[in-house]
């Protein structure tokens, strides 16, 4: 027997959150939720795992710092140690204070850019990427839950209406797709 996808629209974030709670209680499976703005508590309600992107940022920062140290050491100390204003180019540690700004900037540079790139990649954001939100209103003022209809569609509809859905749209799917 066939299952369908439902696109349930809400027009208010609080109602949305309640609805999600109820749906979760009924053990219906929610594929995805689209929102026009960050709704606080949405990830919790959906039980999303916290993102680890900040940890990555830290690692990227460390990489940037290392790169900076290697670069300054190679260019100023190893490759061609010049006598510049008498600065001790014969030892990295002694000359290092002059490089602190560079080390810092490189750290930030790497951390920020690599993190953002990761975010774009993971969330599939790049130029020419086709937008996949099922309903254009979800970037305006509508909230959309993409969920699987239970066995009984009508019962489901009634239930959802009760949770405050503005409209419910049934997307047919044939079996061999899954």
């Amino acid at each position, binding site marked *: 027997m066939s299952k369908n996808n439902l696109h349930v629209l809400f027009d208010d974030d609080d109602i949305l959150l309640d609805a999600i709670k109820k749906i979760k209680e009924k053990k219906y499976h929610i594929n995805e939720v689209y929102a*026009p703005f960050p709704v606080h508590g949405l990830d919790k309600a959906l039980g999303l795992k916290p*993102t680890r992107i900040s940890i990555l*940022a830290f690692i990227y920062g460390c990489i940037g710092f290392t790169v900076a140290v290697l670069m300054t050491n190679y260019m100023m100390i190893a490759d061609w140690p010049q006598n510049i204003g008498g600065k001790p180019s014969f030892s990295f540690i002694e000359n290092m204070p*002059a490089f602190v700004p560079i080390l*810092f*900037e490189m750290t930030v540079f790497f951390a920020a850019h690599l*993190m*953002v790139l990761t975010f774009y990649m993971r969330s599939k954001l790049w130029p020419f990427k*086709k937008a996949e939100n099922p309903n254009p209103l979800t970037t305006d*003022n509508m909230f959309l839950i993409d969920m699987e209809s239970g066995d009984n569609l009508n019962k489901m509809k009634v239930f959802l209406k009760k949770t405050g859905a503005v409209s419910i749209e049934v997307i047919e799917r044939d079996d061999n797709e899954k």
Partner: protein
Amino acid sequence: MSSHYEASIRKPLVEGDKSYHDITVDIARPIETPPNKDWWIAFSIALIAFLWGVGCVIYTIGTGIGSWGLNKTVGWAWDITNFVWWVGIAHAGTLISAVLLLFRQKWRMGINRSAEAMTIFAVIQAGLFPIIHMGRPWLAYWMFPLPNQFGSLWVNFNSPLLWDIFAISTYLTVSLVFWWTGLLPDLAMIRDRAVKPFQKKIYSLISFGWTGRAKDWQRFEEVSLVLAGLATPLVLSVHSIVSMDFATSVIPGWHTTIFPPYFVAGAIFSGFAMVQTLLIIMRKVSRLESYITLQHIELMNIIIMITGSIVGCAYITELFIAWYSGVEYEQFAFLNRATGPYWWAYFFMMTCNVVSPQIMWVKKLRTSIIVSFIISIVVNIGMWFERFVIIVTSLHRDYLPSSWTMFSPTFIDIGIFIGSIGFFLLLFLLYARSFPVIAQAEVKSILKSSGENYKKLRDSHE
């Protein structure tokens, strides 16, 4: 709901009876409606200024830096003054979006988008000057540590000027991605509203296919938070490093350890003033009064007043330390600053930066739009003079009296400065017509807590 609760004493940040959709409509309006006459006038003025500047730059590169007013003693004047001025202005944007985000200041949301845009455009102006002030600008790329045909010929990491290169380029790119990431949901909004196929194409291209999934939003908020965390020390570092151009030198009046904090304060000061100037115009022109409220203006005025006072303290400290140090060159440098041939510049600086913001203590004045506007302009003039005073009056009379001289700008110096202002306005005007000038997604998220209508509603229930 609790997450939406906000003390009712707090003034609403969104005025009028706005729904989520109204916000969408209001933000999208300037983009979807054709520009009015005022915009065209502003645009053409900016364009003319810009083109004049371009002409002056071309002339300079064609004939030589000699076409400026510089001489053997005063090697920097308007060029670096403008550079520092623009960098300073640039700081407000990042501060507003990053620092205020860290402090969870909701009122930032009305203004951070434009402030960040201003940041980027200002950094672009700032970036121009170090390049065109070179004797041989076509070799500017030598400033980067590139492998080259000369063998192991590298840059000098001891040089504050090189620190600048790294700081400025990091700052520019980081604030760019920060800005753009924040833009994605709003661009997506425009995209989904767009009816003209071309417009749709463009906005779907630059919105990177944003859909607003729950997970995306989660990452989005995390990324914004971490970027803010990175941008805050970055913004502080950038102007500190700019100040080190002077602080690490040996020239009396430059060689001052107070510079880094003093410059940062000055940067916030001038930056907020510039934001003030632009937003007061924009809220009128794009009819965004209900999002950029008097409340915003007042809060910014308070910041201007405080930073202005900090800067004032720095000036006094400088004088005190010069006296306290007992170094004859320092003492003379500051005597010369205040009473020498350039006393008038010092006077401008003092009145504009220290005296004028003090009127903001009066609530009536700081809540008056016209006063705020005038002060914001005055402050920016003052801050320009601050940099002029630091650079020129320190250089023109340093150690050996035999090399003392003066500086006066040529029309090229002036032309390039005006050109950069024109370029800045040009970019901003184009931005105001093609980008969502307010972070509508974020505003929507605070609508319930800080929207006037919702506040009323809540109050009536209690």
